[in-house]
């Protein structure tokens, strides 16, 4: 049986969280069909990617030490098909790609396939800015657009954006040693299409057709509207220097952005400014020509890369409606109040438990017999004879514990 490795390397904001959630929750069922998704936690492949690319990520990298080698070893041990999926792999350098492929058995019997899910730049550009904002960024949308359009691409923002989004370059790096038929592009359908279409394409790319998978999503990466993103950016400006990354993640990204503000779906959506639209479409057209020339396996339609037309009424997130931002802020305050109330209750309960424990401890310390025993043990521990006596006593008492 040929060993196959399906390596899904990006791109962000193409339904990757949903795919990874389905694969993770259906691990057992997939294994029964010879499909191996080696992950002991939901973000196992994210950690492995951080490790491979030696990428610091607000302290999370501490959990990633050795993660790639463990993942690769698991893939090498398994038979049948293995799937690895994380979107930040898109930004791997040529040498990191070389290391990754070698560690997965490329050139040593494994048949490696690279899968790249792609979405039109018209939607990816605002989505990437929003992701930056949800990761503590404070730069305006206008500045973001200016940086990514700079041909030098030497800013951190631009190098990351193009590293994870420029389809021909990603495939130059990941596909340099692979024949084009082993490179699969999954295109994200345009907005308004059948909701299950993207999943059907993923299912086809990963050989999951016909399997009875639980497709109920538990983890998704929801989007925010214009006033909500503007609010998060203002929060970043105000709180970044005082709020450390381990607190930012659960409070701002999860509680405020994902659980609260993403529910406000009636606000204006983030979109590309009409004047940037032609540039984005020119770039997408050049990608399309290149992809057609290279002869990759396309699952979907390259027309999907064109993207929707410019909005008639575009809403600028750098100058949002203050009324809408205030509405979002009230929702955010309410969520924080409820969370604070919950934490206060927990704190009160824990303080009560601690008080009770302290009283019990004090009581036992104050007993004269305890003090006497404590003094005796301390004296005995100072000398060899005493230590022998203590050991004998503990043996007789029948406990291995060293406590008196």
């Amino acid at each position, binding site marked *: 049986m040929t060993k196959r490795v399906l390596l899904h390397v990006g791109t962000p904001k193409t339904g990757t969280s949903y795919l990874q959630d389905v694969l993770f929750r259906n691990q057992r069922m997939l294994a029964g069909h010879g499909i191996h998704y080696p992950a002991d936690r939901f973000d196992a492949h994210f950690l492995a990617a951080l490790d491979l690319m030696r990428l610091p990520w607000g302290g999370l990298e501490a959990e990633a030490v050795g993660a790639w080698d463990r993942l690769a070893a698991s893939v090498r041990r398994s038979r049948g098909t293995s799937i690895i999926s994380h979107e930040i792999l898109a930004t*791997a350098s040529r040498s990191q790609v070389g290391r990754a492929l070698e560690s997965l058995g490329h050139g040593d019997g494994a048949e490696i396939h690279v899968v790249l899910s792609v979405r039109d730049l018209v939607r990816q550009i605002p989505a990437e800015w929003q992701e930056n904002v949800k990761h503590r960024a404070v730069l305006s949308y206008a500045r973001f657009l200016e940086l990514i359009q700079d041909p030098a691409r030497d800013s951190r923002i631009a190098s990351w954006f193009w590293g994870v989004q420029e389809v021909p370059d990603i495939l130059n790096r990941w596909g340099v040693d692979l024949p084009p038929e082993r490179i699969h592009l999954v295109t994200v359908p345009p907005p308004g299409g059948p909701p299950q279409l993207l999943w059907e394409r993923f299912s086809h790319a990963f050989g999951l057709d016909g399997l009875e998978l639980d497709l109920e999503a538990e983890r998704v990466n929801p989007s925010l509207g214009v006033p909500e993103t503007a609010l998060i950016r203002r929060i970043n400006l105000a709180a970044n220097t005082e709020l450390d990354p381990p607190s930012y993640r659960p409070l701002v990204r999860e509680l405020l952005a994902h659980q609260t503000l993403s529910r406000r779906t009636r606000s204006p959506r983030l979109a590309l400014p009409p004047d940037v639209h032609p540039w984005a479409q020119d770039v997408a057209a050049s990608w399309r020509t290149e992809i057609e020339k290279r002869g990759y396996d396309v699952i979907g339609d390259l027309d999907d890369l064109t993207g929707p037309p410019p909005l008639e009424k575009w809403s600028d997130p750098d100058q949002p409606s203050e009324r809408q931002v205030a509405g979002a802020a009230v929702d955010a305050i309410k969520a924080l109040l409820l969370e604070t109330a919950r934490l206060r209750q927990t704190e009160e309960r824990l303080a009560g438990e601690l008080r009770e424990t302290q009283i019990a401890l004090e009581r036992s310390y104050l007993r004269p017999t305890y003090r006497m025993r404590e003094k005796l043990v301390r004296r005995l521990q100072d000398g060899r004879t005493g230590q022998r006596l203590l050991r004998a006593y503990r043996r007789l008492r029948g406990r291995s514990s060293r406590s008196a």
Partner: protein
Amino acid sequence: MGPRDQDTPGHRRAWGWVAHLHEGGATPWRDWTSEGEARGRMLPGAQQLELLRRLNSAGSPTPELIERTLTASAPGRGRSDLELLGAVEPLAFGPPPVDPGDLRDDELLRVAAGLLAEDVVAAGLPPAHPPTFVRPWRTRYRLQGDPELADPIREQLVARGRPPGGRGSTVLVLGDRLDRMVVDAWTASCFDEGAAAWGTWLGSRARRRALPHRIDLAHVARTWAGRVGHDRVRIVLDPAAVPRLVGVRRPFTLPGDVPADGVELARRIAAMLGLLVPRDLRRALLRHTVRPRLAAQPGPRLAVSPEHTEWLQRRAVRMGEGIRRAGYPVLGDPDRLLPAPADHDRVVEPSDAGALALAVRLLLGDDGKEWL
């Protein structure tokens, strides 16, 4: 073969330069003309090649270091392995090719810090001291405040069988000139959990007029007074008083200051170590393996720039008043908290160029020292 791996004159020139660097050459790319045979799957990135050229210019890297440099990747965020300008056809996609001579020091430092972090992990920790007998009748203490004073003294006390804590401990809050303590707080972070670059770190605090909690002595004292009682807190502004307060006779040795560029290099190595070893080991490696070698390097020490003197002066006065009002016993002159003009031999900002030069020296072993 990928689209970039073509047998073109530019490509052959690049491989010729790789061979030249491999043999210890230091000619810049823009002056290089000879061609050579391909020696691998793909050309190393411009950052790696330029770093190797700098290593060759400064000394004689070992064959192992040459190989590691060429196959290293620039870790962390930023531009990934770049193509050489003139080696490849103009690219329609990907980052534009560069002349390696035009690369910023920061980009070379990324690669160098990754290599140094690997060296540090390979060196490991110095041999651990055998466990010391813990003296049962020791003076009970806790040391807080300036991390560059409190942490090394605590470590030495532990080594002498006098660990901190225990019932009835007196809390000693150690301090110094506020501007020095600010430098100390950043330095300690660089040798611990990592920190933002000095300018960003200090700038964000200056905007808020906020001090790191550890060196806000009034805040530290207040916190501990709430836990152990007001009468068990002392402010110590005279380090010479510490031995008596903790019940020892022998004075403590404080580790030497690390040059500004050395701290910056440690900050970058810390970021890379975070990806190679667990958090506790990272801290131990930085303190016990990296720090002694960096402290032995020459170079000016860091100072706070004069533009910050005014707000630090105000904060020092407020801190002193807070301590006085609360009535904690103070050992030493309370005016010692006030910032003073920086000594002439200090710098107000580490430099990437200096940190890179230091990294090159350490990689080559030209400082005459080893990690352990």
